[in-house]
């Protein structure tokens, strides 16, 4: 069984949870004896972290046969003329760890000089040319659909759906689209209709849809009017082998830390975290709140915190890299995920690996797995504040939540998830 897997992120080229999930899935599939061709927009982030048996194709290095190139150049010119400029606020925010615009352009220019034979110069992130890049990626999909041999096409999130559809048209092989998040999750208030259209086309063209949670399955069925029978739920997992010791990081103060870690965007609910913090601080003082991450709501949240005049108890760390993420987890006493809409939500699982109790929003895929975690409606900050106080005051409760949630976590693993995905492949291939 050989699968053409179309991804947009893969560590180390990653800006969110998508890359991590794709790696987990790919690793699990390899262990289940699936052969993979993994396509990513660019190899610029560094060498692939996947098993050496995986054939990794970087779209910006891929040179299709001459007839494609001619065809592409003709079509590409048209598309460039009709270029749609995207505005992708939920993703902008994750760009801090990517090269800045100017640097990006410089790099892009350098690449185009070095590799004039390549047809693509991908930024491969979520910049203003995202739509154009998605279309370019689709041409590669079509070319690969004809040139490579495989049994199944597996596309992750909307950026790769047009490529998946193109590959299916070219090869006649079944298409699986994997939904890590929908436009309705990412943009709570103002959805981008172009993206919704692309998602809908992907769902319609797919032979099977994999959703990362029942929450997401319902979302797809309701918002995109897709027959629920077509949608399988395969939960994500976390790499539990990485068990972190909460080694004693000396804090410079004695207060307990309540942590928010994620993009500071509408989807992640940072404003609810702040409002709950104010309510907690009205009732207790031996606590500090920390917001880690960056995002388009950052200025707004900072200003609002200043208005509340709680700068002696509420802190911002900015975007944190790997080491610092470990440090802040190790320092924290309670983790809050107040997401407005979270298809899965890997961060509470990470927190649990550090033995940090979690409070999560009901509007999340994670809540399907973490049965024993306290849950709130994202907007109910009274309830959230009350739970925070209760947890901070009760060590036994914190320990219990950690213990029971870790048991909940035993039900998920990448091996299990991949085995389920393999089953889906087999059903489709046997058609």
């Amino acid at each position: 069984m050989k699968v053409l897997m179309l991804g947009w992120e893969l560590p180390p080229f990653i800006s969110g949870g998508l890359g991590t999930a794709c790696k987990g899935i790919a690793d699990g599939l390899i262990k289940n004896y699936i052969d993979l061709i993994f396509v990513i927009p660019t190899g610029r982030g560094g060498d692939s972290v996947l098993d050496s048996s995986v054939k990794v194709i970087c779209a910006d290095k891929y040179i299709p046969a001459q007839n494609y190139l001619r065809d592409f150049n003709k079509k590409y010119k048209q598309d460039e003329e009709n270029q749609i400029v995207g505005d992708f606020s939920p993703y902008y925010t994750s760009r801090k760890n990517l090269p800045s615009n100017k640097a990006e352009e410089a790099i892009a220019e350098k690449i185009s000089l070095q590799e004039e034979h390549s047809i693509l110069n991908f930024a491969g992130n979520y910049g203003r040319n995202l739509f154009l890049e998605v279309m370019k990626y689709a041409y590669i999909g079509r070319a690969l659909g004809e040139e490579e041999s495989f049994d199944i096409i597996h596309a992750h999130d909307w950026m790769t759906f047009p490529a998946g559809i193109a590959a299916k048209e070219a090869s006649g092989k079944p298409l699986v689209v994997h939904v890590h998040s929908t436009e309705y999750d990412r943009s709570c208030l103002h959805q981008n209709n172009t993206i919704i259209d692309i998602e809908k086309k992907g769902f319609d063209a797919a032979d099977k849809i994999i959703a990362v949670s029942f929450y997401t399955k319902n979302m797809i069925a309701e918002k995109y009017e897709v027959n629920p029978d077509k949608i399988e739920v395969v939960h994500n997992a976390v790499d539990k082998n990485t068990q972190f010791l909460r080694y004693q990081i000396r804090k410079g103060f004695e207060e307990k830390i309540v942590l928010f870690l994620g993009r500071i965007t509408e989807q992640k609910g940072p404003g609810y975290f702040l409002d709950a913090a104010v309510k907690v601080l009205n009732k207790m003082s031996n606590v500090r709140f920390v917001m880690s991450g960056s995002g388009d709501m950052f200025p707004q949240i900072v200003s609002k915190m200043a208005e509340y005049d709680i700068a002696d108890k509420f802190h911002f760390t900015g975007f944190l890299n790997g080491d610092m993420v470990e440090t802040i987890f190790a320092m924290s006493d309670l983790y809050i995920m107040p997401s407005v809409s979270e298809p899965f939500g890997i961060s509470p699982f990470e927190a649990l690996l550090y033995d940090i109790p979690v409070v999560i929003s009901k509007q999340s895929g994670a809540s399907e797995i973490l049965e024993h975690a306290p849950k709130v409606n994202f907007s109910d900050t009274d309830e959230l504040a009350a739970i925070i106080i209760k947890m901070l005051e009760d060590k036994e409760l914190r320990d219990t939540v950690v213990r029971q949630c870790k048991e909940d976590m035993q039900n998920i693993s990448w091996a299990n998830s991949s085995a389920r995905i393999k089953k889906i492949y087999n059903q489709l291939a046997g058609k």
Partner: protein
Amino acid sequence: MSSLCFYFQVHQPFRLKTKYTFFEIGKNHFYEDESLNRDICNKVSKNCYIPATRLMLDLVEKFKGKFKVSFSISGTALEQFQQFNPEVIELFKNLHKTGCVEFFAETYYHSLAFLYSIEEFRQQVEKHRRAIKELFGGEPVTFRNTELVYSNAIAMEAKNMGFKNILAEGVDKIPGRLSFAAPLGGGGLPDADADGGLGGNPAAGHAFPFGLYYPRGVPEMNLLLRNYRLSDDIAFRFSEKSWKEYPLTAAKYVKRLSGTNSWNKISGESAHKASGYASLSDAALPSAGRTMDKAADKTNSRRIINLFMDYETLGEHHSAQTGIFDFFENLISTIINKTDIEFVMPKEVSQKGLNKTAEKIDVPDIISWADEERDLSAWQGNSMQKSALNMIYKLEENIKKLGNEEITHLWRKLQTSDHFYYMSTKRFQDGAVHRYFNYFPTPYDAYIIYCNVVNDLYETVKKRV
């Protein structure tokens, strides 16, 4: 005969580390970016403080006492000179020996303390007064508050501390009062153009303020008001190529300063406007212009033009290549050789009798020399700034209880107004000025770093009190 008062502000803050993150709180008590502060101090000393002060010395010597100049040097700047560029202090000492220079007093830490704690304000002014006395000898008699933050109450406080003179911005509008530049009913003069300077409307453009004033309720005090149009022609517009008057020459500038006929008439009219500010009924008279000549005569006898600006104007804000030093040298020699304008220092205005015709100015609400608004919005304009100011002044009680000199000094350095200026989110024209002075990528970074630092200080104090 008119008088001209040149005063330069010298200030450098202790800038904070831009990488002082949340993780440092309670662990790292070194807040300042010493290498950045050293680099900036070295650069500005090389570009401005050293060559400009040498030029001042040359001019004083060349014109044998006819050229006089005043300075206010913040305590945080003095400390950095002592640490990084002692030559600058030596040059100022040499200048002081000539007797042609006056050093003012201000808050040692270039702070907004007056707005938060009178006690803290007094202590900082005392500390600065002592520092100036120790360095240069002589007791400062003129007070200038940080960024020319001024009101009746501040003038009263300065008087109580023994000062004779105080400085303020010559604003167009005093909050809650009639505009200085209010058009006369039926009068032919167009309104003043705030940023036109020389090229704007010369008529109303630079006429006010033209005399000496005294603060309401404090008649014994002399109040010198900055002529912002003429000051900003040099401070802001000198090297601006899109400005109509570019390039500004000494001859052109002196023509505006000195008594051409039109100037006299205009100043007479504006004098009337200004007195209209003092007495509302006159200004409302449609026939106001008729008394012009009389007003002009009256004005001329006590005319004083106050050019107040950052010292860094010379060589730093405008680099030497722009010709700013040549301009300044030419300006001084032209004034001395070709006009009857006399240089004065604020400490001389009483003995020269300039105060005899002083008019009362009532400033019930705070004004300053910053931004278009000339108010406190540059430091208190948004919630971050207010939160940061609250945080630092909330510490006062415990800091004073602790009485630790080193910690008090740390706390006070965090009161320097620049820290709050960096947090300003103003856009448009002033935003550009803000960005020029800001070493933080955004105001939000400035606020967050500042809060981290102050949180560490909270921890230090908490552990000791």
